């Protein structure tokens, strides 16, 4: 049975110059698997992820023929019901630790806040769990990180703190929006390993939003390629590098390769039929 079903999702922003459609009829379903969403900035991949949590603020609005999570109609349940889902059942790791962590609160307090308030744990128990969560994301010096403010951490450390925070309540569905773009390759591999273990051992569903095609090809089970609010191609991740769609091919060809020619890199040609409305 699928964990999440989305049919004909549309996200519209009403602006002074008329409505702007950021997502234009996206449909997909997700089981306990790793689903990648790739595309350039502005393709609507982040908006698709945020819509699942109904985290689109006015003037933006979400419409869908159907959006169901584990038997619950996400379009119908009241805001209080949504709040019970967010974090606990569906969690989201945001793109940028600089803007997503509270800058004036120590990391330790941010990590234990949920445990103390939501799960009503005592201080010592909450700290123990938070330390374990930091260790699980391969932070070498968790005691120091607990005492640090977000600005004292590097981007990679901040990103791992956010992942640790989201994984503490053991959600069923994790929406990860560019969770590793701030990380270097070696740390990236470790973080992906952590996410992978969670999908496999706990049967968590994962929506992995990224602009890095190679990463998605290697890591996910299935991939949606988005362009200007639409899914232009859906395919198994292992076939992504051999994609047929001219847009996907164009994106792949732009990437420099180790040992490749030093001449100018090919740039994306947007003159094809697929680029029209």
């Amino acid at each position, binding site marked *: 049975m699928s964990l999440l079903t989305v049919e004909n999702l549309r996200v519209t922003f009403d602006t002074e110059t008329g409505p702007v459609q950021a997502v234009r009829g996206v449909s997909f379903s997700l089981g306990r698997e790793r689903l990648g969403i790739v595309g350039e900035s502005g393709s609507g991949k982040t908006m698709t992820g945020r819509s699942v949590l109904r985290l689109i603020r006015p003037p933006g609005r979400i419409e869908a023929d159907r959006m169901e999570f584990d038997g619950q109609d996400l379009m119908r349940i009241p805001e209080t019901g949504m709040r019970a889902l967010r974090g606990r059942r569906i969690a989201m790791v945001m793109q940028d630790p600089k803007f997503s962590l509270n800058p004036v609160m120590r990391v330790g307090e941010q990590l234990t806040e949920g445990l103390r308030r939501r799960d009503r744990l005592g201080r010592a128990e909450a700290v123990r769990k938070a330390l374990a969560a930091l260790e699980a994301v391969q932070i070498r010096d968790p005691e120091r990180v607990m005492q640090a403010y977000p600005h004292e951490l590097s981007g990679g450390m901040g990103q791992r703190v956010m992942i640790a925070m989201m994984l503490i309540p053991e959600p069923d569905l994790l929406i990860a929006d560019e969770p590793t773009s701030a990380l270097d390759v070696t740390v990236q591999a470790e973080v992906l390993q952590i996410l992978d273990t969670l999908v496999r051992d706990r049967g968590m569903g994962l929506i992995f939003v990224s602009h890095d095609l190679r990463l998605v090809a290697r890591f996910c089970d299935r991939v949606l390629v988005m362009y200007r609010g639409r899914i232009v191609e859906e395919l198994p991740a292992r076939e992504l590098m051999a994609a047929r769609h001219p847009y996907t091919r164009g994106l792949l060809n732009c990437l420099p390769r180790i*040992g490749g020619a030093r001449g100018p890199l090919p740039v994306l040609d947007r003159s094809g039929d697929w680029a029209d409305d």
Partner: protein
Amino acid sequence: MTDRPAIEIDRLDVTFAAKGRAVRAVQGVSLAVARRESFGLVGESGSGKSTILRAICGLAPVSGGAIRLGGDPLPARRGKDFSTRVQMVFQDPYASLHPRHTIDRTLSEPLAIHGIGDTDARVVRALQDVGLPAAFRFRYPHQLSGGQRQRVAIARALMLNPQILLLDEPTSALDASVQAEVLNLLTRLREERGLTFLMVSHDLAVIDHMCDRILVMQHGRAVEEIAHADLAAGRMQTDYARSLFAASADRMLS
């Protein structure tokens, strides 16, 4: 003077004081970049690669070693002479441009500081050089896309005609399609102006495409220097460099 390296770094130490604890971000790193060379720094986050660029600009607490440009030691306060020779392009084009200054003001400020006239023509030419229409002068950063902003950041860095560009992850915030455009732009500008690049990236494929030599760093120390041909062929001496290379296997030409 001409055969002295453009940038020489000799056993550089950078130490930050954090809550009474000394954090040694860079420990005894030496490197030399020849004129017109493109040199890459790679390593995991926290390895000290960006700190080296900041140390050159006088933005990091250097606690030992020396930095020389064209053989001359740098003055403690970097001053105007330094900014006509060295400029930096930062990773995040959303944070490195003043949000309430027009592009025109961002680009003309270095000219005003250095008392250089002919502002109008220079700003228009700078925009042309990075492939932006002249009308962009009167826009604000929030009216531009990420790639356009990074082009403005490059144009700003080139306003004073420096010989050396320090590039801190110049394309890691950009989409693949835009990254290709910005890398092509940097390559063209380097050829046209004979620039020297010192470039930081965590993407080995980008470094391979752009640099003649690379230095692998870990925990603030230099691990291994690799020539461009050896990188592509996978010829490394140290386990760490090999693991970095192995983690980038999907970026290989296949």
